[in-house]
C-alpha cells in the first residue's frame, strides 16, 4: 500500500529499553506532581495569609507559569539559571521546570476550589480555638484537595506529556529521550515513535482510570 517497508520487528526489539524510559518518565512526572502539590499548597497559604508581598509572590508565580510555554520554563531552569552560576543537570532542570509549571496551575485550581468552601467554616474553626494554620490544615485543606482532585488528575497527565520536553535540555533517559537516541541509531523514526506514542497513550489512560478508581474509593460519602 505504501512505498515504504515498515520494520516493526527491529523497533519492537528495542521495547525493553523504551519501557525503562517510560519508568523514568513516570518517576519524573510523579515527583514533579508531589512537589507541585506541596508548593501549590504553600502558594495558596501565601495567598490567604493577607501579607501583600507573599500574595504578590503567588500571583507572579501563577501568572508566569500559566502565560509562558512549558518549554520556555524548562529552558529557563536549564540555561537561564545557569547564567546565574547554578548548573542543573538535565534531570533536575526538567524536574524544576515541570514542578514550576505544575505548582502554578495547581495553585490556580486551588483558588477555584477555595471559592466553593464557605468562609464561615474558617470562622467557625477559629472560634472553636484553632489557629489560622490549624484551621487551614484541618478544615479547608482536606476539602480543597478533594474538590480539585479531578484537575489534579489532568495536571498529572500534563506532567507526563511535559516530560517529553526534557530532550531539549539533553535528557536522554526518559521515554522520549530514549526513543530519540534509538532513532539516531536505527533511523526507524516512524516505527519507534509510534511505539512511544502507544506507551504514552497507555500511561495516560492508566492514570486517568486509576484516578477514577481512587476517587470512587476515597470519596464514597
Amino acid at each position, binding site marked *: 500500500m505504501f512505498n515504504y517497508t515498515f520494520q516493526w520487528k527491529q523497533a519492537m526489539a528495542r521495547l525493553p529499553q523504551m519501557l525503562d524510559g517510560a519508568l523514568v518518565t513516570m518517576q519524573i512526572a510523579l515527583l514533579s506532581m508531589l512537589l507541585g502539590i506541596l508548593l501549590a499548597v504553600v502558594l495558596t497559604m501565601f495567598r490567604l495569609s493577607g501579607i501583600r508581598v507573599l500574595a504578590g509572590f503567588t500571583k507572579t508565580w501563577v501568572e508566569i507559569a500559566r502565560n509562558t510555554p512549558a*518549554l520556555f520554563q524548562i529552558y529557563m531552569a536549564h540555561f537561564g539559571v545557569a547564567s546565574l552560576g547554578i548548573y542543573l543537570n538535565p534531570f533536575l532542570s526538567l524536574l524544576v521546570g515541570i514542578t514550576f509549571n505544575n505548582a502554578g496551575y495547581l495553585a490556580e485550581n486551588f483558588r477555584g476550589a477555595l471559592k466553593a468552601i464557605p468562609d464561615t467554616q474558617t470562622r467557625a474553626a477559629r472560634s472553636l480555638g484553632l489557629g489560622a494554620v490549624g484551621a487551614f490544615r484541618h478544615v479547608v485543606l482536606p476539602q480543597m484537595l478533594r474538590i480539585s482532585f479531578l484537575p489534579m488528575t489532568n495536571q498529572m497527565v500534563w506532567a507526563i506529556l511535559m516530560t*517529553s520536553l526534557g530532550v531539549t535540555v539533553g535528557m536522554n533517559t526518559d521515554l522520549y529521550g530514549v526513543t530519540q537516541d534509538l532513532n539516531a541509531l536505527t533511523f526507524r523514526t516512524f516505527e519507534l515513535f509510534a511505539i512511544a506514542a502507544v506507551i504514552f497513550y497507555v500511561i495516560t489512560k492508566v492514570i486517568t482510570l486509576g484516578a477514577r478508581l481512587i476517587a470512587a474509593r476515597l470519596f464514597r460519602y
Partner: protein
Amino acid sequence: MFDTALTANDFIFLAKGAWMTILVTIVSVIAGTVLGIVFGTFRYQVGPIWAAPLTFVLDIFRSIPLLIQLVLANAFLGTVLRLNLSGLTIACIVLSMYCAAYCAEIVRGGIEAVPTTTRRAARSLGLTWWQDMREIVLPLATRVALPSWIGLALGVMKDSALVYVVQVTELLRSTQILITRLQEPLLLLMICGAFYFVISFPLARFGGYLEKRWSHD
C-alpha cells in the same frame, strides 16, 4: 552586567520568529476551531455510541505528547507517503488537529449547556434544526464556551513553541539560536518570555473577565 552583544539585526531575527509563532497559532486556531465545531456538533448529534470512533481518535491527540505527534506526522507524511510538505505545513496540520481535539470537547460542553427545554420550545415554534442551532444554541453556547476557547487558543500559542522539531524557526527556537551564538541566555530568554507573556496575559485576563461576567445572569 548590562552590556550586551545583542544588535538590531538580532531583534529582526527574533521578530521573524515571533511572526512565525503568531502565524502558526492563527492558522491552527482558525482551522482547529472550524474542525472542532464540526466534530463537537457531530459528537453531540449522533450520541456517544456512534461517535465512539471519532472520540477515540480525538482522545489520541490529547493523550500523547505534541512533540511525538509532530515527529510522527513528519515521518509519516515525509518518509511513508513521500509527500514533499514544508515543515510549516506539517506544523499547521498537527496543531490544527490538536486544537480541534480540545475544541470539540469545549463545543460539546457548550451545546450540552443549552437547556433541552429551550431547544424543544424553539423546534415547536417551527424553527428548523439549522435555525435552532444558529439562533438559539449558538448564542447560548458561545457564552459558556468562549472563556475556555480563549484558554485553548492561548494554549495552542504556547504549545506552538514545540514546532521546532519540524524545522520551523519560531520564537523560542530563534531565541535558542541566538543563545548559542551570543551566550547570553538569561537576557534572551527574558525577552522571549516577555513576548509570550505580553500576548497571553491580557487575553487570559479578558477570558477570566468574560467568565465572571457571563456566569451571573
